């Protein structure tokens, strides 16, 4: 580290989850087309975004990742018919849980990318890195969650 302000030189480490059929192939496509993007994301290939166990995301944060990218086929284009929708459900819940744990929602990103969208994939990664950089390293301390207001539950008639 140099003595410049930390957030300017901070290079976040991002773990990215991709599906075998669309988003991983988008990454392949970005590669074959030699599109340049920030080197901060390290990808994991799953067969389907539906395989994304929320534990994986928690594990990544716990292990020192500053942010997590979750990507899959566009809705309607899933290789496994509609499993990306099932990931989507989990994603929304997970995002909320993370928030309650004190993790800024900007640290997790959902990206739909088809196998032909290498350019979009590269561009979105760049945007994401710039979104995370100002947040600085993940500062996950026990008790942070208390700062977040508990979600308001509607009265459910018995």
């Amino acid at each position: 580290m140099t003595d410049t302000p930390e957030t300017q030189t901070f290079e976040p480490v991002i773990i990215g989850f991709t599906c075998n059929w669309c988003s991983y192939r988008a990454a392949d496509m970005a590669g074959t087309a030699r599109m340049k993007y920030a080197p901060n994301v390290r990808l994991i290939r799953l067969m389907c975004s539906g395989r994304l166990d929320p534990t994986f995301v928690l594990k990544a944060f716990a292990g020192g990742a500053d942010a997590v990218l979750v990507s899959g086929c566009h809705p309607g284009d899933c290789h496994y018919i509609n499993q990306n929708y099932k990931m989507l459900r989990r994603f929304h819940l997970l995002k909320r849980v993370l928030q309650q744990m004190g993790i800024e929602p900007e640290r997790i990103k959902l990206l739909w990318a088809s196998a032909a969208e290498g350019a979009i994939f590269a561009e979105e990664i760049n945007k994401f890195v710039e979104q995370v950089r100002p947040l600085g390293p993940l500062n996950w301390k026990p008790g942070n969650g208390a700062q977040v207001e508990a979600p308001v539950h509607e009265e459910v008639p018995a």
Partner: protein
Amino acid sequence: MEKKERIGVYVCHCGTNIAGVVNVGEVSTWAAENLKEQGVVIARDYKFMCSSLGQELIQKDIKEHGLTRVVVAACSPHLHEQTFRNACKGAGLNPYLSELVSIREQSSWVHTDKVAATEKSKALIAGGVARVIHHEPLEPLRVPIHPATLVVGGGIAGIQAALEIANAGYPVYLVEREPSIGGHMAQFDKTFPTLDCSACILTPKMVEAGNHPNITLLTYSEVEKVDGYVGNFVVTIRKRARSVNEELCTGCGICWEKCPKKVVDNIFEAGMGTRKAIYVPFPQAVPKYPVIDRENCTYYIKGTCKACEKFCPTNAIDFAQEDQLLNVEVGNIILATGYELFDARRITQYGYGRLANVFTSLEFERLSNAAGPTGGNIVLRDGKTVPKVVGIVHCVGSRDKNYNEYCSAICCMQSLKFAHLVHERTGAEVYNFYIDIRTPAKGYEEFYHRLLEEGTHFIRGKVAEISDAVRLPGEEGKLIIQVEDTLTGNQLRVPVDMVILSAGLEPRRDAKEVANKFGISCSADGWLIERHPKLDPVATVTEGIYIAGCVQGPKDIPASVAQGAAAAARILGKIQQKEIALEPVRASINQDQCSGCRICNNLCPFNAILFHEDRMVSEVNPALCQGCGTCVAACPAGAISGTGFSNEQILSQIEGLLLLNIPKKETVA
């Protein structure tokens, strides 16, 4: 850690593709030193790992160093995973004990910062090493293949596919929704660019399919349900009641001669002609048996008539006939359900449906067809006036963000064909209004030049409006085409007698349903998606389901035929092998841990999870499972594990990617 794996790491230069950005020497030295704890016993870098010398290097090390795991850092697994698996197999190591880490597509090709790319490559390799430890030796799944094939759709693509398979000696069920096979091609008069008579080249194939001992023709039928998986599908087909006993009918045609009820034929004749309530769609129909259209038949409406029954010489009319549900077993399925024509009414400014002498391309096909309603005379809607000036509008509903963005591929050639036919048969002046002329196939460009020489006018511009509103002298009684000639920048008003709208191709209205029924997917446009747009155009992501013809996207007859034959060849290859090897990425449920909550049951889109009521546990059918892993992620009891993508594998990979448990040493000089 129990028994320590002996891991070899191989870093590929890929010429300068990787080595030009990533310091491969540094990476392999780093892996050898820093990943010792993880079990790396050897790390090398080599110019081309995929070359036979590179593969031999791995094989030699497996034997000499007793490697139990192999990590190759090179290109994308989609390119060379199989190569390195085979290399391992060749040296006696189970192929699934290897891992390919992509440091080309994901590092050297996309990053310019050499230091960062090198560091990232190290992390990716650490992830691969951590993951490979948890790989298990696997065997591909083997399932037997039923030799029969189902072909859905009896157009030219489906007919071709059925014939190829049947001629190879295997049974085929050819299912067609309409009463006859033939598809759109049967409606055409001529085919471009050779101007072959469409019926003359199609009907022999139809007859061959109809008479083939290996083909079971199921017309006027639809697929209701598909169960099972590659090699062993069970398909339920609804054979709709024809009201004609096929055993007795000879196809003599007396019934439709005697039938008093005339009906406008919106399907085969595109609304240009009529048929009877009992009918065959066209004289060369295969099979030759008619059907009674119950919605229009006087007997079904009023309870009297029965003219057909009275005159039938073989007593084949059966008013009480009911739909039949047939179950057939097949190993593979080809979907060749074709396309629908873009509804030109949607572009109101073109006046179709409002201005009598605006025709669609399919209407013109019938008009120019010698067997059509006018006997091939090209005349206006009044049935007698020969047009003196004809305008042909290209790209109607195609290449238009308001309707369909894609190019329908066939309209340019079709329009040129129309221009030629109009010119030849009526001597009329012909104007083509085009955006671009696209003639990219054998003999197509030559045909375009022939048209230019014939004196057809070509105006480059998208037609703004077609109207009958007279503004200038000479426009009385004409249709006026308003267009900007984009080559000269002039606004033109071209008065014509007849307009032909070269309507684009659209997916079948029920394409989505069909895709769901067969467990495959459609693009946002509605065309069914092939497994790979370049290298696997007829297979789909569901094993055993193939697509051919326009169902996959707009294409001309030669391309449809080629796809039909290609799909057949793929299937024949599979049938020949008697059994099929499936990638062993599958979910399995630990019966002792399953709580029987059934959460996974509804998550599976392939119905691969069955619930045993007696034991209250769920089980995965490995042949149906496609390995997406959604159930694995969802199981609250952690009872489901996914082969090849287990929790241990992925969690370890995360640790590796984050360089956890790796001694920090100063590596960057």
